[in-house]
């Protein structure tokens, strides 16, 4: 009886391939709260388009302010000849001209683009992984994870080169080998990558696909 119990213990430890057991899983991915929190945290901030548009507005505001102030003082800095600007606008340029339509369409398109940038959530900058603490959000940057999995796959004996592509819910490994008989190699790469993902414990399940190619030489 005692022997049986210790035997069961032993297999339980071996189930992790001799590695120490995982820290208690937080069950984070079964609850929507942490997932939503992580998604919000790693959603693109749109800071670059925001700062660009703000810079354009600041420049336009300053130029307009200087121009209008100098005009108010009776000494316009840039004396725009009447015939160049106001002249055509009140004689030759009409509302239904192609030029008017083109400019209005371009402005409308820019506006539409800004609305899309503001509203589309965008691809998360990092893959959120489980944490044991509600106040802790953990993310692995997409690029970092791609390189990390690529190194792991390339370290498998027999693999020459490995490239990883990340989808939303999938990881595709393209590995090349020079071995004549690559039997079982695909499975070992798959196991290595799946094991790493299992240890990272992403908040949504990631499928792993491995494509193995034989390189001559």
């Amino acid at each position, binding site marked *: 009886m005692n022997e049986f119990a210790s035997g069961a213990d032993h297999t339980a430890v071996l189930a992790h391939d001799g590695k*120490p057991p995982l820290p208690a899983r937080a069950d984070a991915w079964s609850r929507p709260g942490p997932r939503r929190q992580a998604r919000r945290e790693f959603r693109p901030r749109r800071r670059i388009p925001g700062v660009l548009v703000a810079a354009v507005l600041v420049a336009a505001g300053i130029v307009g302010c200087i121009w209008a102030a100098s005009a108010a003082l009776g000494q316009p800095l840039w004396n725009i000849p009447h015939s160049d600007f106001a002249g055509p606008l009140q004689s030759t340029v009409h509302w239904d001209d192609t030029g*008017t339509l083109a400019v209005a369409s371009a402005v409308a398109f820019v506006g539409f683009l800004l609305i899309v940038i503001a*509203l589309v959530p965008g691809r998360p900058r990092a893959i959120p992984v489980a944490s044991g603490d509600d106040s802790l959000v953990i993310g692995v940057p997409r690029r*970092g994870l791609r390189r990390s999995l690529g190194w792991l796959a390339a370290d498998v004996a027999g693999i020459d080169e490995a490239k990883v592509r990340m989808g939303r819910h999938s990881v595709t490994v393209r590995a090349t080998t020079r071995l004549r008989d690559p039997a079982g190699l695909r499975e070992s790469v798959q196991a290595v990558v799946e094991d790493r993902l299992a240890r990272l414990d992403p908040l949504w399940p990631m499928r792993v696909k491995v494509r193995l190619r034989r390189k001559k030489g």
Partner: protein
Amino acid sequence: MLTRHTARVSRIGLLIIGLILLLGAGAVLARSLKASTTVLGNPHAALLTQGQVQYATKNSWVWPVVAAGSFVIAALALWWMAAQTRTRTVHRIPVEPDRLHGTTTLRADAATGALTDELKSHPGIRASDAVLHGSATTPGLRLGVTAENRADPGLVRAGVETEALPHLRGALELDKIPTVLRLQFSRAFDRHLT
């Protein structure tokens, strides 16, 4: 979370500007395409009427108002830009806030330095950086950890969760520090070994 405010600033501003551009250009397009002649006017008319061109020269208040309006736009845009680029780093943290006997403050970089030193001493962690941000009394933590690629990420995570962060919470006497951890991997060790 504290960063949420700054997270939304860019998107809300872009949405407002986008709507203004789209509606303005939409009105021009509607007039050009004869959508509603009675409301918007005749599409064959010139862009400006004689009266509109003369208006600014006849009324002396037009240019000062335009100047003031441009100034307001520039100021608002500048504020928006500052709000988007602000990092809101916390430099000093009050510990034992006791009004009668004065307050003790702790330098934030001393606390984060102790945290990153502790993390770097972990065998699986190669580098770490940490910044406290938000308000001084309820700061949030932005933590970056670069783990050795062959290290077990579960152990690295456990080191952060069960040792480093509780120590920081203890040092700052806070029950909770909302933390965002960015986990990176590095392979320099591997190259060294092989």
